[in-house]
């Protein structure tokens, strides 16, 4: 069966690009779009994939990340699908990519103005946990009434003693819209603040596209007496490349201890290569 370039028909791509343009114009605002049926199931990255397919051109180089790795089955399948329908080059190297589709991570290496990051989003509505009704959350955004977002954090403080628990910590974008940054670790929230690159976020199941344009103010929500905190691994370093201050995965070392390793595997490898370590 013959597909058009990048699988989607031109009409669909144009609609998605329009939604993306609007999203860039109103940073943090969730633009509705007509999410297409894709060859992968909704909830598996169809929002990100549709953005990738609508944006990609023959000159692009694509990188796909799933929770920090290029090698997991989700990343491999999406990369293969895009390659099979476009023939574009793919890469594992963050610096070489022009377009990066990612599930729940912003790469450790700072991105440049020539790169676009596409994030997959399961639940785009930051107020959803407290307010289930869509017509109500839309009104809350329109009136910039973000009580519900703070209430969710307040409850978290009551329960866990800290507002910073888990991923997908809500952010205020450009001083106007509260946005779900997708379930990226809190360390990655700070990479969106005044970034060089454009970040586009796509939720296929929920049919929303939103964006953080370059150089946009992005602040994680917090209280006066309970500040926002990023993940801390103490003084632990990656056991493979020795880096600190990045998001680490925890492994069981087999002796009841914990082994830490970079979550961003391609960057870990790049650091090892730079150190000239023998493979």
């Amino acid at each position, binding site marked *: 069966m013959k597909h058009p370039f990048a699988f989607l028909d031109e009409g669909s791509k144009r609609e998605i690009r329009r939604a993306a343009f609007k999203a860039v114009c109103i940073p943090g605002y969730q633009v509705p779009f007509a999410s297409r049926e894709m060859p992968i199931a909704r909830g598996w990255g169809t929002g990100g994939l549709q953005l990738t397919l609508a944006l990609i051109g023959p000159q692009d180089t694509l990188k796909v990340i799933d929770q920090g790795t290029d090698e997991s089955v989700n990343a491999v399948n999406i990369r293969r699908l895009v390659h099979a329908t476009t023939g574009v080059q793919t890469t594992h190297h963050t610096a070489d990519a022009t377009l990066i589709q990612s599930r729940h991570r912003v790469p450790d290496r700072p991105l440049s103005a020539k790169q676009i990051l596409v994030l997959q989003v399961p639940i785009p509505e930051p107020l959803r946990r407290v307010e289930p009704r869509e017509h109500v959350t839309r009104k809350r955004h329109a*009136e910039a009434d973000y009580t519900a977002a*703070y*209430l969710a954090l307040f*409850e978290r403080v009551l329960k866990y003693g800290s507002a910073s628990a888990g991923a997908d910590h809500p952010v205020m974008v450009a001083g106007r819209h509260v946005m779900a940054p997708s379930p990226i670790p809190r360390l990655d929230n700070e990479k969106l603040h005044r970034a060089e690159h454009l970040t586009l976020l796509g939720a296929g199941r929920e049919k929303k596209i939103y964006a953080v344009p370059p150089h946009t103010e992005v602040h994680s929500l917090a*209280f*006066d*007496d309970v500040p926002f905190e990023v993940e801390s691994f103490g003084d632990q370093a990656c056991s493979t490349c020795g880096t600190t201050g990045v998001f680490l995965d925890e492994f069981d070392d087999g002796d009841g201890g914990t082994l830490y390793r970079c979550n961003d595997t391609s960057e870990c490898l790049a650091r090892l290569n730079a150190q000239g370590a023998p493979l």
Partner: protein
Amino acid sequence: MNVAPDMPPRLEAHGIHVRHGPGCDRCLTGAGPEQGNRCAACGTVHAVRQVDVQAFDGEVLGIVGESGSGKSSLLRTLALEQAPSAGMYLIREDGPDDHQNRFDASDQAIRRLRNETIGLVRQHAHETLRMRLSATGNIAETMLAAGHRHVGRMRERAAGLLDDVSIARDRHLDAPATFSGGMQQRVQIARAIANNPPVLLLDEVTTGLDLSVQARVLDLIQRIQRERQMTVILVSHDLAVVRMLADRTLVMRHGQVIEHGLTDRILEDPHMPYTQELVQSLL
């Protein structure tokens, strides 16, 4: 009663009309609906008809009437929950909007009024409370909405309010879903007064509670009203509740106020036949 006589009213509403349906020449021009509050010609229901309400500082105003008499519709409009078909509504805040018709206020202004100036307690706690969040969180919500961003201070104040309404300390972090009906009502009251609103609106707050719990909730309302000198408007079909709390009472029927006056006068010497029937049947 401890009304400051020289102060203008805290609340003042004129000509409130709540209409469900288009209305027609007959019911809109003078003749009025002919079957209770329903127009015989066009079927339009006139839930509230040309009602005036005034309430002063420190005063408790009761509104009684049978089911469908329009008392809850009237309270909903006074709580700015529902816009009336017509009417004028002034709220004294000693601010720049005191002479503005609050029915015409923007959504944001109405949200602020409902959060900071008018506390509302409903018959069913689940319409107000977030049953799965903690009681403390429920009270903090109104403070968050008023712009507070200090967790320690909000917790302290929420704990003080919950103490005030006699919720045990070890239940403050529990969800209202796990509370009894009377406790839920008390949490609702604590939440309604969290931002120190000058006005408290109560819609059938003790209906459905057993008698001893009713008495405790009414005591609590009376104490809070006296301590804070709040303006309270109380809707109930239960004349005993009105007798206990209200200084003045309006009697409503078919969407209209048919009689108003001091509560004692209304209960001891009802003038209108309907009020006489009501007092006879319920006491």
